[in-house]
């Protein structure tokens, strides 16, 4: 492990699908225990970026480094969570949380005990033996995050995890995620369409361009932690939101005749 290497580094990554570029010369660094939100227009390649970092997809060129080690195209190093909770209907809450262990080496009773402890700590204690269909959307996403945490990888990629929830539940989940993050020593890369969500949660907000995706701005979010609901209405927050919105919605350049 190289000293001072960022926890996650995406180096000059370009991805082409059948020649059409989806990402172009994209570079991004995330420090240990940092929370970085990525916002960008639809189709800017945010999910492609996640598939690259998780190793599901190999870039046309460029590298992915974890602690300075090249892991381009390798899976099994980071946790991954989507808008769809992807809970397995025949597994209970605990059974779903230990899925990573079950798929790699077989889940032990110790894994299950650990899952139960994790779930209990973060508000799922009453639902350990429930099947997913008996849970609300918000609860299901909590289980999905616990499943991601139980992978024992402290880098988490969260791809619009709350995108399918109603606004009330979504806000509850954001505050819940804040408490989990502030409690644990994890590094999070978070994709969202929601500018409020991006700022409320993150230490940095990276803004992506239209396709082919690049990082066009990287903003520090100096709001103090622990954060709560009041952050959303603070003057500092409004200032940051104005800036992100301005970056996202630049007026279209007029091509001179």
């Amino acid at each position, binding site marked *: 492990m190289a000293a001072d290497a960022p926890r996650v580094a995406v180096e000059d990554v370009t991805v082409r699908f059948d020649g059409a570029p989806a990402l172009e010369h994209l570079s991004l660094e995330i420090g240990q225990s940092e929370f970085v939100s990525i916002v960008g227009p639809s189709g800017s390649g945010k999910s492609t970026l996640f598939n690259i970092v*998780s190793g599901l997809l190999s870039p046309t060129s460029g590298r992915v480094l974890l602690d300075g080690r090249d892991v381009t195209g390798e899976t099994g190093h980071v946790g991954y969570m989507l808008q769809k909770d992807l809970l397995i209907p*025949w597994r209970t809450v*605990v059974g779903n949380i230990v899925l990573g262990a*079950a*798929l790699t080496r077989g889940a032990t009773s110790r894994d299950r005990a650990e899952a139960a402890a994790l779930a209990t700590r973060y508000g799922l204690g009453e639902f350990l033996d429930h099947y997913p269909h008996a849970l609300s959307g918000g609860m299901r996403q909590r289980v999905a995050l616990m499943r991601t945490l*139980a992978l024992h990888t402290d880098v988490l990629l969260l791809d619009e995890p709350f995108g399918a929830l109603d606004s009330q539940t979504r806000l509850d989940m954001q505050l819940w995620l804040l408490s989990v993050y502030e409690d644990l020593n994890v590094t999070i890369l978070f994709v969202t369409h929601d500018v409020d969500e991006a700022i409320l949660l993150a230490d940095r907000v990276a803004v992506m361009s239209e396709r082919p995706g690049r990082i066009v701005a990287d903003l520090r979010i100096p709001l103090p932690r622990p954060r709560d609901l009041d952050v959303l209405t603070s003057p500092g927050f409004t200032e940051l939101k104005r800036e992100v919105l301005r970056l996202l919605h630049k007026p279209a350049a007029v091509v001179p005749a």
Partner: protein
Amino acid sequence: MNFLRRSAVRVALAALAVGLIFGVWNLVIFAFDLKAYALPTPQSSVATIYDRWSTFQPLTLQTIGETAYGFLIGAAVGFLLAVVMSASKTVQRLLYPTLITSQAVPIVAIAAPLAILFGFGLLPKLVIVAWVVFFPVVVNVLDGLAHVDQDLLNLSRVMGAKRWRAFLAIQLPATLSPLFSGLKIGATYAVTGAVIGEWVASAQYGLGTYLQTEAGTLDTKGVMGATILLTAIGIASFLLVVAAEVVATPWRTRSTARRGVGSLLRNDERKGARGWFGSLLQSRSR
């Protein structure tokens, strides 16, 4: 308590349905003034079963045996075929037309050559029953395997899953619900398969053979008795599959697992379990 009440209501409704069928049956006899040799009443048909039970009992056991063994063979063959076919697109494209052809051939037509091939014992009957049962199983299980969420398979890759573990944990259980849909269809077809098998290839007597000989002597009471018994076997098979489904897929009918992790939550064990998770819990230095 609630469960018992709902069950009682369902049983009562099912009994009412049987009563209705028997009522209509009686009504038809009355309306068209049918003689007993043309169509006996359901009561007298059931009474015939009772009167001739010493005759019916071995026949019924014989037919139940053919149905049950043929069903199990057909289900197993169908399931294995589906798993093999799902593993390779080429195998699937090769076998699917063959399977469809197997069902397009009139079963009665191939029953005779099967009897010539396999003789007149139990074997040709098992083959015929399995023949009608395996198809709905293959089709449903294949569908189930094809519809496993691709994102879920991607997630398992991100988790670094071993292929066979992913198959056991994700794909195989996903076939259960479609498997049971196929089995329910198969269970009702199986009895028909057994009867056809007995008609073309019988040395031992079963309900199907009895049906055939008694029809020849215009013993309609015997025919209707055997028919009611065959129907009962079909319904019982279906109900057995439903019962097996409830046991095998608890997540479809229950909100919590029967045997959960409750015992894991004793405090001493919880402390021991902190392990990795405890090391994540932090005094963050920000």
